[in-house]
């Protein structure tokens, strides 16, 4: 088991103030905060795409993790080949069959042989999730995966994220969408100006925010859901 993930006095330039945090296995974690709060940077630090300026970050053991970005980046090849590429990099066997299964899972099997870049935004994001699904990650980081999608595409993406959760993958998702946080999250880590201001179960966070910052954020954001 790769988790828990421990962040000790982790800092990144002046974007993330030194923070200590432990991400445990199990319930899905929502990293909530306004634009510029440091959500994306924190996700990238945890996933290993950025090196911290100071502090330590440690997984319990080596294991597979995946990340899905706000804007998926697809290679100029078929949808299927994009998933196969990820599996090959991960050293998987029987890549083609596994890739097809993953496409099946996200409802893209019928588009397997289409060039990935000509798919719609929602389909490309589902493909990005299929690419992650094929890897059977123990942890899946999602950085505002529906921020540029319409409501129906968003629903499809949320369904797939729930499937990850149900299959035992730990979901860690950054979002500023309060409705989405409530639909998909078990616990909320509220980030404000690079600091963790509050960490609470979802219901408690939304019904009884403990800090003024979180309360203001919930209030201010509500009309935008």
């Amino acid at each position: 088991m790769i988790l828990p993930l421990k962040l000790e006095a982790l800092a990144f330039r002046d974007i993330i103030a030194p923070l200590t945090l432990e991400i445990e296995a199990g319930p899905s974690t929502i990293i909530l905060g306004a634009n510029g709060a440091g959500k994306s940077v924190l996700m990238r630090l945890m996933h290993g795409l950025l090196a911290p300026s100071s502090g330590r970050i440690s997984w319990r053991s080596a294991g597979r993790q995946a990340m899905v970005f706000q804007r998926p980046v697809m290679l100029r090849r078929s949808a299927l080949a994009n998933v196969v590429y990820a599996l090959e990099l991960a050293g998987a066997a029987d890549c083609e069959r596994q890739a097809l299964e993953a496409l099946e899972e996200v409802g893209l099997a019928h588009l397997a042989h289409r060039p990935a870049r000509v798919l719609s935004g929602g389909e490309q994001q589902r493909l990005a999730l299929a690419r992650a699904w094929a890897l059977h990650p123990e942890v899946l980081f999602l950085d505002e995966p529906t921020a540029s999608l319409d409501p129906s595409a968003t629903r499809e993406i949320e369904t797939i994220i729930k499937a990850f959760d149900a299959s035992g993958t730990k979901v860690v998702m950054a979002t500023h969408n309060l409705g989405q946080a409530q639909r998909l999250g078990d616990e909320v880590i509220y980030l404000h100006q690079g600091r963790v201001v509050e960490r609470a179960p979802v219901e408690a966070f939304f019904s009884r925010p403990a800090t003024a910052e979180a309360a203001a954020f919930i209030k201010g954001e509500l009309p935008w859901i």
Partner: protein
Amino acid sequence: MSGEIAEGLRLVATLDLRLWQIVALSLMVSLTAVALATALGLPLGAAVAVVRFPGRDAVIVLLNALMGLPPVVVGLLVYLLLSRAGPLGELGLLFTPGAMVIAQTVLITPIIAALSRQAVADAWREYEEQLRSLGARGVGAALTLVWDIRFSLLTAVLAGLGRASAEVGAVMIVGGNIDGVTRVMTTAIALETSKGDLPLALGLGMVLIAVVLLLNAAAFLVKEAAQRRYG
């Protein structure tokens, strides 16, 4: 003047042997140079785009500056290299098509390297996080990138080809413009113009422009088709 243009057209249309020998040699020299320069310059450009190392900025500036190398200077340097007393004099390449290929390769490798570096660097900005997240690193990541933008890189190769087929100075110095051996379109045009044989010069000029146009049109069509196919 119009009589000379007509005569030039006649030479082209009647497949004048002397003219077509010159055209064939030009294409052989420039296409070989482009192939070699692509083999050298493209990986170099991709590596500089993706790999971080000390002095990288200086290398980028140098590559960009070398795009403007004057052909006569390249010709002179390769001449010194290949002349009897030069370090590679023993090969006896001076005044052969081989020497012309070497000179043009030196001339256009920086062009292809600098333009590929730019294209790969732009793509790397877009792909980097995703590829690193998937575990692609180093040479593997660079190869993925180059393959993915291969149709954009065609532009870099075409720029090299344009430069190679249009330059006079380098092939003149290292080839010597020997009739039937090292005479290519550009050197022939320069010579025939100074001799006053304008029809042959004009005919060659028309072929030169047509060849460049055709190659660019073909590359354009390939790129368009790829864009529609792969997005």
